């Protein structure tokens, strides 16, 4: 037990480069695997949360762009969404990494982007914005006609019409699908360190460490189930938070008309 506490002190923040430098090399204990893989989860949560929050605002803008009447706004939004939804995230990571690498050669400004914490985040941000924008666009299209007509009847226009009627309704309709998108985004963060972005000083994410243990012990039956457990917990947390927001968005509706969030993962990117 005391060994385990020592291990947690040594490796708990290993993925951030704090604590013991050397990874364990032999005689792996369960405690070490739990600690290191859990430490790697910090990266997964970081990528997921930051990309999700920043992507949310961009996605709203993109969805409005795609629904706009002017072709100057609509076409770029459509192309952006098609570009990121039509190609594999894995290839996007590779492409972005080498793009940033060659940009770095010319402008030192880009040097941060070749490391995972910034570069991969940019890709995830753009990617989730595209997927979310498609969901929001679908929701925009299915806003009940009565709602917008009522807004017009009250004389609401422009920003206040958007802020008070369109936006809340869009969010309310899109929320169940958006929850699934969020879960997927977290799953997709595991790709980062397998796609060119280097894990400097072996500071990797959860899958990186799970893979490390599986390689060293040649026994996949321990680290991957641990990883799976962490992700199931993460998924449950996401569902809880999004469910609470969903309740708040639907608070004006009678109980039986509220949209339920169903955990329905089906796509990987």
């Amino acid at each position, binding site marked *: 037990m005391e060994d385990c506490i020592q291990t947690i002190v040594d490796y708990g923040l290993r993925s951030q480069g704090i604590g013991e430098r050397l990874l364990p090399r032999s005689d792996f204990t369960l405690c070490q695997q739990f600690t290191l893989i859990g430490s790697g989860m910090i990266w997964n949560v970081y990528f997921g949360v930051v990309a999700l929050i920043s992507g949310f605002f961009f996605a709203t803008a993109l969805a409005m762009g795609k629904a706009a009447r002017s072709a100057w706004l609509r076409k770029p939004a459509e192309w952006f969404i098609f570009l990121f939804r039509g190609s*594999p995230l894995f290839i996007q990571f590779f*492409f972005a990494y*080498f793009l940033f*690498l060659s940009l770095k050669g010319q402008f030192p400004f880009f040097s941060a982007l070749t490391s995972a914490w910034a570069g991969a985040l940019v890709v995830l941000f753009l990617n989730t914005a595209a997927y979310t924008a498609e969901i929001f666009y679908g929701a925009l299209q299915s806003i009940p006609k009565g709602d917008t007509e009522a807004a017009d009847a009250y004389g609401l226009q422009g920003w206040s019409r958007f802020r008070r009627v369109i936006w809340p309704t869009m969010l309310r309709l899109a929320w169940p699908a958006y929850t699934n998108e969020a879960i997927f985004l977290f799953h997709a963060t*595991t790709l980062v360190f*397998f796609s060119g972005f280097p894990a400097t000083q072996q500071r990797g994410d959860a899958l990186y460490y799970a893979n490390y243990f599986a390689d060293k012990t*040649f026994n996949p039956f321990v680290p*991957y189930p641990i990883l799976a457990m962490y*992700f199931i917990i993460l998924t449950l947390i996401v569902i809880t938070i999004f469910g609470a927001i969903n309740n708040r968005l639907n608070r004006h509706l009678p109980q039986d008309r509220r949209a339920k969030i169903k955990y329905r993962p089906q796509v990987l990117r």
Partner: protein
Amino acid sequence: MGLYWSFGTVLLLLAITAPTALAFGFGGASAARSHFAPLRWFGKTYIAVVRGVPDIAFFLFFVIALDQGIEYLRHKIKCPDWDMPIRQGNDFVVCSEAKMPLGNAAQWIHESYGFMLAVLTFAIVFGAFAANVLFGAMRAVPKGQLETAEAYGMSRRQTFWRVLVPQMWVFALPGLSNLWMVLIKATPLLFLLGVEDIVYWSRELGGTKTPTFTAYPHGDWRIYYFAFLLVFYLCFTKVSEMVLDRIMARLTHGQATSAGEAQRKAAA
């Protein structure tokens, strides 16, 4: 040359995996609605577990797990009088006859064995997704149809094969076409499974070449190779989208769904 062949690898993977995954999915969905409880539990667990965990973790896990599982079984059958434990600390040791493929096998056998494992892994993962889609589609078939079949005195088996299965495809197609898109986009993950696919070759060929090693020295071209891959996948998804739209239009023709109704109105 390797790059061109690897496009073939990707297409071959898609061609083999799609039907296999569909078969897995069909099996899973039928199991999940079976009346025999353990079989039903098995089907439902299969669907639930595979969908709940990051797919990449599954890809990494299954390749080793399947390999070890096969070797373990062969070991049990071929070398019954082996007295050492199989897991010795960090090593997985089986007798040399049980190695898969055999240590002295040709290079191409090793490669195709790796490819086969990859196909099986893809089929297991996507089979679960397909099972989910088909399970939903089976439930979407109007109940009246099944009751009619029963009224005509068909047995459960006959109802399943003659009434349910032919009718469920219309309901399954949107989900399955979505799955096909996802499958296309999952193919670059082959690289993680150790198959020499397009990602592998793009990295190899695009990397900086110096005159010492090759007749065609060039700088770091990987960005162009990956830009090309990006465009390749975009075109591929676009074409599939168009083809699937066609199939959907044909299948909805004359169906009593809102899309079918819209078609009828447009024609009239």
